[in-house]
């Protein structure tokens, strides 16, 4: 596993700051009622997890996740304009406006989408990996799992299939401390969630700090190696934190947990951590370079918003009935 060089780290910095810019803009647009609906789950605070985990993906690998799915699409290179258009339910959105924030997907990028039923996508991940094994493609499926989702029957059955059949799935538990308002400790009989891997014959790679992209990258690398060596499914638990509560309609946790939130932002912000690392490691990188990247992202998201808001809404019966079935 190659140690990331300066360019790689700068690319990661770009990805992480793009995610942050995109998510915070979504937040703002929601407040302004330019994005509507009840469900909009932001990735702010989690950036290092997805960036570090997905840096290992190759062309043929697959990604699937739950409703907190913006970051994965951005990292895989899905056009931010099409993503923002989906947030706004426009015809030009990646899902034609039918899916919204929770249902982004892009087959060209092997992004199998975001799903709204907690745990529902986990057996789908096993199924996608089943195809990879069936056709011996050598692909790996990266499946995100929320801490709350680990208590659902879907988790149990999906992981048992993966362990039993040695399916090439990497289960990435994003333990952000909460399922909506419920702390991991109040939901799991054993809150060391990675311990569950052993029940299924899934290799347990234990825990890693999700705010440090280098550590995430490192730990995940070992898990991918295990799978790519044909040794079967693997699991990693990543400790992270959400900056915007469960979803944008959830204000109470921002306030209830203000102190906790402030501490995470102050001491464990993934972007700050990577920025500091870049500046200290590489003389040739300075604050302006990083500021430049962030400004570039602002433009990208500006354009995305403009594109989205200038896109039409689907509104005909023909559009309504399109793609219920393959005809």
């Amino acid at each position: 596993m190659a140690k990331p060089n300066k360019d790689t780290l700068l690319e990661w910095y770009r990805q992480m700051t793009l995610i942050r810019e995109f998510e915070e803009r979504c937040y703002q647009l929601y407040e302004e009622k330019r994005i509507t609906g009840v469900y909009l789950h932001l990735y702010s605070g989690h950036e290092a997890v997805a960036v570090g985990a997905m840096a290992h993906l190759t062309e043929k690998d697959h990604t699937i996740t739950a409703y907190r799915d913006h970051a994965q699409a951005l990292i895989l290179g899905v056009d931010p304009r099409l993503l923002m258009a989906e947030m706004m339910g426009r015809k030009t959105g990646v899902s034609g406006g039918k899916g919204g924030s929770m249902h982004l997907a892009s087959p060209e990028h092997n992004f199998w989408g975001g799903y709204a039923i907690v745990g529902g996508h986990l057996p789908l991940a096993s199924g996608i990996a089943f195809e990879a094994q069936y056709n011996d493609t050598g692909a790996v499926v990266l499946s995100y799992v929320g801490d709350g989702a680990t208590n659902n029957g879907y988790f149990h059955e999906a992981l048992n299939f993966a362990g039993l059949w040695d399916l090439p799935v990497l289960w990435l538990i994003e333990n952000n401390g909460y399922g909506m308002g419920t702390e991991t400790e109040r939901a799991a009989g054993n809150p060391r969630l990675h311990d569950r891997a052993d029940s299924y014959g899934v290799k347990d790679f234990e825990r890693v700090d999700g705010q440090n992209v280098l550590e995430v990258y490192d730990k995940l690398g070992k898990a991918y190696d295990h799978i790519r060596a044909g040794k079967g499914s693997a699991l990693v638990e990543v400790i992270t934190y959400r900056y915007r509560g469960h979803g944008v309609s959830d204000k109470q946790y921002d306030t209830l947990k203000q102190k906790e939130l402030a501490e995470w932002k102050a001491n464990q912000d993934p972007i700050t951590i990577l920025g500091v690392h870049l500046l200290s490691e590489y003389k040739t990188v300075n604050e302006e370079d990083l500021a430049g990247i962030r400004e570039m992202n602002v433009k990208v998201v500006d354009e995305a918003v403009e594109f989205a808001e200038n896109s039409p809404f689907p509104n005909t019966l023909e559009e309504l009935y399109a793609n219920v079935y393959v005809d």
Partner: protein
Amino acid sequence: MADKNLPMREALRLALQEEMRRDERVFIMGEEVGQWQGTHKVTRGFLEEFGEKRVRDTPIAEMGIGGLAVGAAMAGLRPVAEFMTINFAFLALDAIVNHAAKVRYFFDGKFKAPVVFRAATGWGDQATASHSHTPEVIFAHFPGLYVCSPSNSADAYGLLKTSIRDDNPVLFTESIGLYRFPGPVPDEPDYTLPIGKGDIKHEGSDVTLVSYGRAVSWCLKAAKELAKEGISAEVVDVRWLRPLDTELIFESFRKTNRAVIVEESHQFYSFGSEVAAQIQENCFDYMDAPIKRVTQHDVPVPFSKPLEDLTYPDHTDVIKAVKEIL
């Protein structure tokens, strides 16, 4: 005593609160019912008042929630198990229809399962396809269970108390779209309503509008508008999908000789199908016109607001249907 005026959310909250105060055996469990104060705030303040013993935040484990509630009910408690939304109760279908609804019958009366499964139902606010169902019928298909869905604050108050006090398992669904609507609530802690009895929400003589839950509000609005045109519509709120108050429906139909059945869900194998089938079979000689049904379009529910709006019926569709058969 004087009525209070409360949104349905608060009427439900009051009913549940009073029942928990009245009976130590009643407890509430579900995702986010405690610290979060309830996703729909029906349990606001409960954790503070009743404590962790009787207000149980649960893991995201619907089949477990369903089954645990059945066991606790068999053992003598009166669980109120909240599914955050009815969509998640799909994962508890077996616990509800194959266990709650059958333990009494398996064992020929040796046990009872006085559990109330509460769930927010219906659509709106761009919740998208997997989160936008009004599927009472798929549960009501099975004997052994009661299925109730109130259409206003007073009914919500009385029907929830009825459901909690009854010894049979009840699936009690609450239209998300109605939570915020205010209405009078009797100031009467023992206010209950009979099981399986519907209610005439608006008297009329020209056409019968049959519905439940939020669809009742569309019917009432339609009745108002139709009245302006001199068309007198009677609005029958069945309140219960099981047992279904067919007598009340027939009585009204024998008077009006015309009916439109209105519901939020998909058309096929649904509420409207059963009611129309019942009417034509039992009131054949009274039929002056085909019975019409108003339902949502036969598609999963899309996110985009204009499409979502297109998916669902409202009072205008009811009016249209009425005019087609007058």
